[in-house]
């Protein structure tokens, strides 16, 4: 079991925060589509993975000690060829060594650069009274400023998933407001149900955040994810 291995490894290192790589591997196990992600331990691996996955790609630092990857210069976007990937790899490693000299660097993740879509988020946190609760909302400014989110308690039924998506005020955006690409709501429902199933069977997970998810008219992709374990 990949999930057990990942959780076991983190436990062994005394970590409750999983890296983006680990979080996404866990999501893939739960049946959720993510931007493809592979761990490159060398510059050469980064280049060969990029070629296999297809350009453009994104490189991100993988280190349990770097919580704010962008601030530390650990993220490079829109890399279109081998040369750009190689240089980006070098920039990331030197920037991290400068910002976080003591960080344990596991490598650099190579991910497909996802085509922009409507940003949504799915989160799970635990209520002291009612246990795991799922949150759904539109991503970015709408969730932060307007708190336009809905909640349901795990386990969710299909009706719950459908209602919690329709409940947010920004729902018309998902339907394709003013010619924007509509979101495949059925896929988002499915994603909520998969997260619900997964966290129900994994009480050792304390928090889970998939932010953002890019929603398209023909699917959805988890672009960034974070999992926190119970201590």
């Amino acid at each position, binding site marked *: 079991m990949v999930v057990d291995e990942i959780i076991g490894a983190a436990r062994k290192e005394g970590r409750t925060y999983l890296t983006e790589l680990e979080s996404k591997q866990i999501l893939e196990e739960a049946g959720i589509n993510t931007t493809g992600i592979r761990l490159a331990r060398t510059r050469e691996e980064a280049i060969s993975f990029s070629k296999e996955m297809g350009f453009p790609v994104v490189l991100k630092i993988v280190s349990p000690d770097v919580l704010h990857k962008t601030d530390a210069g650990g993220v490079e976007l829109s890399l279109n060829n081998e040369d750009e990937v190689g240089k980006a790899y070098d920039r990331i490693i030197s920037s991290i060594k400068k910002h976080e000299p003591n960080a344990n660097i596991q490598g650099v993740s190579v991910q497909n650069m996802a085509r922009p879509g409507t940003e949504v988020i799915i989160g799970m946190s635990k209520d002291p*009274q*009612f246990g795991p*609760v799922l949150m759904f909302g539109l991503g970015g400014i709408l969730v932060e400023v307007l708190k336009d989110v809905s*909640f349901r308690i795990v386990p969710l039924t299909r009706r719950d998933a459908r209602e919690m998506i329709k409940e947010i005020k920004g729902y018309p955006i998902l339907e394709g407001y003013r010619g924007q690409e509509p979101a495949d709501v059925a896929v988002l429902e499915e994603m909520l149900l998969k997260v619900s199933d997964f966290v129900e069977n994994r009480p050792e997970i304390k928090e889970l955040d998939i932010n953002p998810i890019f929603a398209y008219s023909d699917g959805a992709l988890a672009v960034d994810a974070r999992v926190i374990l119970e201590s």
Partner: protein
Amino acid sequence: MKDIVKKLDRAFNPRSVAVVGDKMEMGYMWLRGLANFQGRVYSVQIDEKELAGIEALGVKNYFSLLDIPDEVDYVIVAVPRAAAPKIVKDCIEKKVGGVMLFTSGFAETNTEEGIRLQRVITEMAREADLNLIGPNCVGIFNPKIGLCHAIDQYSGDGGNVGFISQSGTHATFFSMVGRANGIMVSKSVSYGNAVVLDSTDYMEYLGEDEDTKIIGLYIEGVKKGRQFFSSLREIAKRKPVLIWKGGETEEGSRATASHTASLAESPLIWDALIRQCGAIKVDSLDEMLDVIKALLYAKPITGSRVGLCAMTGGQSVVIADAFAKAGLEVPLLTERSYREFASFFDIIGSSYRNPLDISSNLRSMDNIIRCIDILNDDERIDAVVLELSLVFLTRLGWLIPNFFDSLIDALTLYKERASKPFLTILISAHAESEAIEAKKKLVERGIPSFPSFERGAKALKKVAEYYRLQSL
């Protein structure tokens, strides 16, 4: 029989009740409240000064629960808190069906002694599997068998609505205000600090109770959140469940702590939970009763489009505003309906677009009924609402004797044949005392009435949302 029914049946349907510690100072409230009880009543009191008063009520007193030469199904305890552990111990030894502690002064006081005593009785009861209700509550009300909190509650007639309340006042008010609105209690329980039995247990019990068709809850906090959630989800599929959550604000939660020692909980999560379970959230006793009234006395609504009939022009504007603001639709009618209106409706000073203003048509009882018949038959309409304006109906009574009573007769017949839910809004204006009489007549006929457009609109919206969720 389900386990929970087996467990709580003796407490909810006792054949014998003992009151421990009732006294003159309280006007023998508990013993007098059992005046119409259909089983055997005993008193336990050790204070010699109280014995004459208790005997005068025709109740046999004992010095200990253990001395009673009979099985005791339900015990009401009103002793000072220091004596509570002793009484709980006796209840365990006596193997009673349930014990309710009116006694307060426990964890809700946030004092060392209160917390200690609460822990003592909780541990004793849990270990012995004693059905301890409370403490700090008024316990069970079962009107059918005359088990009452006080003599001013009704007995004999049992209803079909169960009520579970963390507050004694809300339980008592629910029964009394409810009755004035045609809502009668099957069984209710006030349960205070909920140290052993909690809302979930009572909800599961009333969920199985055949006399209970609708369940209302007033909750300040729950103890077993996961079980509450799964039970509510299951029960709300079978019976409407309404939840009124106390202490939703930071200020209110300060009071729940000292009232029933309940912790603050997130209102967002509660809202989500209630909706998810298909239960109905209400924010006050009035709203609780309004929604229950609409559930009990109006046919199920299958959409959200209302036909509104006001008695004057200004009211036709604000009734439409109120229902639209509540989230219901007030659509234009079909051409067929408009043709029918055109055939008889006096439009000088009136209007029938929807909302209707029927002021010029009020003098003909037939025309009033014809208007709401057309609304009922219109395929664009899911529910019909009629304003009953006491001021204008009273003035009509000067011209046409017994106008109001005849109108109620006609509305009773209308309600019977109407295929869609029908609600009335009884606008009393200044005539508040007359409104009491008028409302009573409507209650007797089973015609649901609400005292303002806003309350009627909100209740109908909640009921529409309930049926919508049920149908998914």
